[in-house]
């Protein structure tokens, strides 16, 4: 089983992010534990993207603190976050569709051999490592590191990006809507890879719209509504319906249902 440590590896305390008077995040506190999956839920515009951008160093909070292993940190760039062990994977996974698997796997951290002016990119090692790491995550169809990222399926691209993060020792893995663009089978595979990462002791932050996917892999859940944390609960503490209601803003959903029933009522009368 996953290592359940008591101490959070990464946390936010009362973080507010202000964009020219608009509070994209308002007083949000959050804790991320190693070996657990934290699901970040919320409607479009609820502040999920801003939150992960704060976590991954793209934005600095207007107020509040970010803590890494219990000490205050100030990420000035994505590289700062990266250096600590925060890896972010975006919706479409590998972001360099026209680069080979081996090359894109090592972008920014290229292995080299030789010395001085003859120091060169170790393509063989890069290709072999990338393929091996992807196969370790169950992507067995990929055998050639020379293939272009763009020729992979959506799930395979996600896998290549996650494999890269795992290979370089990420401690916190942020996945932004990894299953949104995928079919059912591919999404299942990505969820399985998320479980693998979790069992390696990596803290996973999963941003998603899909309540089923969240319930399948999540240990901990946080719901954002209009920049504020509306709810925060552990696995099993809420039902699927409660979560769906929360995500859609609760009352709004009930109202919509009422409205829909009057509409269908009218249709029934016509018939």
């Amino acid at each position, binding site marked *: 089983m996953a290592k359940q440590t008591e101490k959070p590896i990464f946390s936010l305390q009362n973080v507010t992010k202000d964009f020219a008077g608009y509070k994209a995040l308002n007083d949000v506190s959050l804790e991320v534990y190693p070996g657990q999956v934290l699901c970040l839920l919320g409607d479009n515009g609820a502040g999920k993207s801003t939150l992960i951008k704060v976590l*991954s160093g*793209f934005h600095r909070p207007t107020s509040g603190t970010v803590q890494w292993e219990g000490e205050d940190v100030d990420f000035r760039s*994505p*590289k700062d976050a*990266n*250096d600590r062990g925060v890896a*972010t994977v*975006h919706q479409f996974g590998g*972001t*360099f*569709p*026209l*680069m080979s698997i081996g*090359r*894109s796997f*090592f*972008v*920014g*951290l*290229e292995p*080299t051999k030789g010395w001085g002016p003859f*120091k*060169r*990119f170790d393509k063989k090692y890069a290709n072999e490592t990338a393929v091996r790491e992807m196969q370790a995550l169950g992507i067995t169809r990929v055998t050639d590191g*020379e*293939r*272009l990222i*763009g*020729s*992979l399926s959506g799930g395979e691209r996600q896998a290549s990006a996650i494999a890269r993060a795992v290979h370089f020792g990420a401690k916190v893995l942020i996945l932004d809507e990894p299953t949104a663009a995928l079919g059912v089978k591919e999404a299942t595979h990505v969820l399985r890879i998320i479980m693998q990462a979790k069992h390696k002791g990596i803290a996973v932050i999963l941003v998603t719209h899909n309540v089923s996917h969240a319930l399948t892999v999540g240990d901990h859940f946080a719901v954002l509504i209009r920049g504020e944390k509306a709810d925060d609960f552990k696995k099993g503490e809420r039902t699927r319906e409660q979560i769906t209601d929360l995500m859609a803003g609760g009352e709004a959903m009930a109202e919509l249902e009422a409205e829909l029933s009057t509409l269908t009522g009218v249709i029934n009368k016509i018939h």
Partner: protein
Amino acid sequence: MAAQKQIFDVRSLLRRPEFGAFVSALFVFIFFAIFGGAEFLGPGGLSSSLNIAAELGLIALPVALVMIAGDLDLSVGSTMMASAVVMALLSGTYGLPTIVGVLGALAVGVVAGFLNGIITTKTNLPSFVVTLAISFATSGLAFGVIRLLTGTLQADVTPEPWLKDTLGTLFFNNWEGAIGLFILVAAIVSWILYKTKYGNWIYAIGGDVISAKATGIPVDRVRIALFIGSGIGSALLGIVQTAMYNSAQVGAGSSFVFNSIIAVVIGGVLLTGGYGSPVGVVLGCLTFAIVGQGIYYTGWESDWALLFIGTLLLAAVLSNNTFRRLALGGGRKKKEAK
């Protein structure tokens, strides 16, 4: 392993970025071999094509790196002209040693490239606009200075033998020294792109600049360095032409702006960046030169060459898109349970 694949796997050959350029170079060569006859295939014909390709390549190869990284450089013509002017002024008008003129010309290339790079990266303006502005400014400055100092738009120079006998002469009455320089530049550019980590950075920056930045690549410094590279390439051509003709060619630059882009695109580099190869660009330069020179050997009016180049460029852009789709198709189309 790689060699085996190239021999046996035709599909992987098809997917290479230089494949389209290879086809077009082969096509125009055969075309003009047929219509241009023996004279086109003789040393006079072949050398004239290769000389033009070599001169163009000095600029097109470093410009290809700029374009793979997602930028454009429209200032190459002015930079070339300005560096020729500086070389002729220093070594000709002021009678300084040739080496001083050569270094001065290279310095012009470095400064122009640096300005392009620093302004593009610091202002986040499109490089298209920045390099266009720098192009006009450089031309104006060069014209102004040469007229101020010599009273004409002409500056003559007699290069010392070490330069005249290498880059300023025709070997065996046909072959320009620039061909050797072209091979050297092609080797350096290929080494950088294929064999160093900087090559990987260039592809990544052209592919997705935000993600590239997030992985810690010093994006701004790389882009500035690439602009300096195309500035140096332009200066090299300025030096070669000054050495050839014993004077600064004040009106010569502008055609190289579009010609370099045409050669790069025919060479398989995507206009959007992120994809391309130096081998393709070498073939693109050859294609361009063969069309331009081959037309003389057919006995037709040379105007038709422009029609040829235009059609070829359009065909290249269209086929680049097709080849990119092929490349993204992965090649092996196994029937898979979906």
